[in-house]
């Protein structure tokens, strides 16, 4: 009943793939023991379930709420950006991707909800080296979907925590640090803003090693040592250990944050790639909790248990 790929992404402790479903049914049937009536019922309900989806698939019985008809509007500029005591634009605040300052699922397709409008500020495709282009080209659309780190609940890393993140973030600017709190998986990063250089040989990390300095009213974050398991988009843009990410963040007005990133990767790209200016807008609500969860850990733990104790009967 379940295909291989969907088995990989189950999350629950209850049966979640073909093998586990079989075990689950076995346990269930054991509980009902020799009760013939219930056993027949189990068969019956499975029979009904298998047929009902086909019986009910179809189109149109009720009107549909207004996807794509949302009236969301971009926030107004909101006046000048506040400044910190030492004169820098204060980047602090809760920020939502796009221009509406909040989340609204009905606004999907509305350019105001996007970080940028590709019709207005198109982005260059990643300038892959031929071997890298070939590697990415081999990915089917489905491959790209089920192999992308984010679907597997991996951290999106840098710059993913900005450019592939649909959830709000909170930025906190202190005298010495830029702090980014991500609602997505309760992730965070803390970047010194005193202009210090990178350490000599930083260990790889999902968020890499970031250091920052100010260039006028723009905070520039320079990041290296990014864990190679992250992707820079949802379509297979992998990177090497030589990736170098430079993010530029400014707050042109009270309600808007502008983010632009340049990615260098001499092992994968032919030249640096620079994103379109991305827009985030000021929200007026606290971050909540969002966790991606994944049963792969469960599978790994089960394998370890089986290794030491033998498969559970």
């Amino acid at each position: 009943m379940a295909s291989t790929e969907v088995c990989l992404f189950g999350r629950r402790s209850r049966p979640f793939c073909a093998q586990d479903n079989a075990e689950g049914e076995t346990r269930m049937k054991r509980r009902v023991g020799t009760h013939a009536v219930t056993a027949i019922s189990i068969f019956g309900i499975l029979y009904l379930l298998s047929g009902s989806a086909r019986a009910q698939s179809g189109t149109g019985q009720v009107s549909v709420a207004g996807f794509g008809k949302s009236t969301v509007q971009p926030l107004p500029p909101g006046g000048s950006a506040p400044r910190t005591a030492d004169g820098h634009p204060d980047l602090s605040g809760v920020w939502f991707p796009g221009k509406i300052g909040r989340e609204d699922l009905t606004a999907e397709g509305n350019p105001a909800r996007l970080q940028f409008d590709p019709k207005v500020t198109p982005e260059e495709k990643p300038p892959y080296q031929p071997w890298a282009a070939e590697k990415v080209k081999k990915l089917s659309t489905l491959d790209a979907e089920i192999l992308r780190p984010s679907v597997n609940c991996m951290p999106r890393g840098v710059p993913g925590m900005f450019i592939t993140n649909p959830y709000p973030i909170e930025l906190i600017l202190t005298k010495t640090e830029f702090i980014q709190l991500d609602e997505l998986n309760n992730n965070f990063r803390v970047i010194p803003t005193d202009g210090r250089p990178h350490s000599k040989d930083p260990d790889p990390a999902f968020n890499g090693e970031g250091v920052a300095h100010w260039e006028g009213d723009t905070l520039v974050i320079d990041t290296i040592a990014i864990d190679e398991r992250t992707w820079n988009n949802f379509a297979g843009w992998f990177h090497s250990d030589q990736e170098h990410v430079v993010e530029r963040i400014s707050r042109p007005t009270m309600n808007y944050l502008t983010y632009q990133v340049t990615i260098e990767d001499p092992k994968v790209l032919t030249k640096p790639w620079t994103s379109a200016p991305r827009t985030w807008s000021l929200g007026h609500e606290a971050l909540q909790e969002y966790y991606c969860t994944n049963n792969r850990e469960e599978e790994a733990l089960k394998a370890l248990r089986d290794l030491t104790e033998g498969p559970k009967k």
Partner: protein
Amino acid sequence: MTHVLKGIIPVTLSLLFAIAANVLPIFAHHGFQAEYDGSKVIYITGTLTKLEWENPHAYFWVEAKDTTGRVTTWTFEGASPIAVKRTGTVRTDFTSNIGKTVTVRAIPGKDGTTKGAAETIKLPDGREVVVGGKRFFGDRRSGGEY
């Protein structure tokens, strides 16, 4: 078999639906295209029986009669609770309607089981509220992931 089941269902109804909910493969964070068929849309009208308002995705269950009159349990997956809530649909929209009749618009699973990626749910008060992103014909662009 149908005749036998008609006699059994009233007695073992709750057990059957508990079993149904457990043997159905239900998934949370996953590739949409891997599991659902975005080229189809279904509308299921039935009794809302249960809600799981939890990360990473909200789930709810609806008991509905198929075209032959048989009652089946549908498992629906929505977006993350916080994304749904920010769109204006709150947990009590579900919990206050348990046991009542609703209509769900959803994208069916590819495996033919009674599950769907829900877009909206029409509540007894007539409101059709959003419970997931737009999935029908689309969602193949990057960025549409929660």
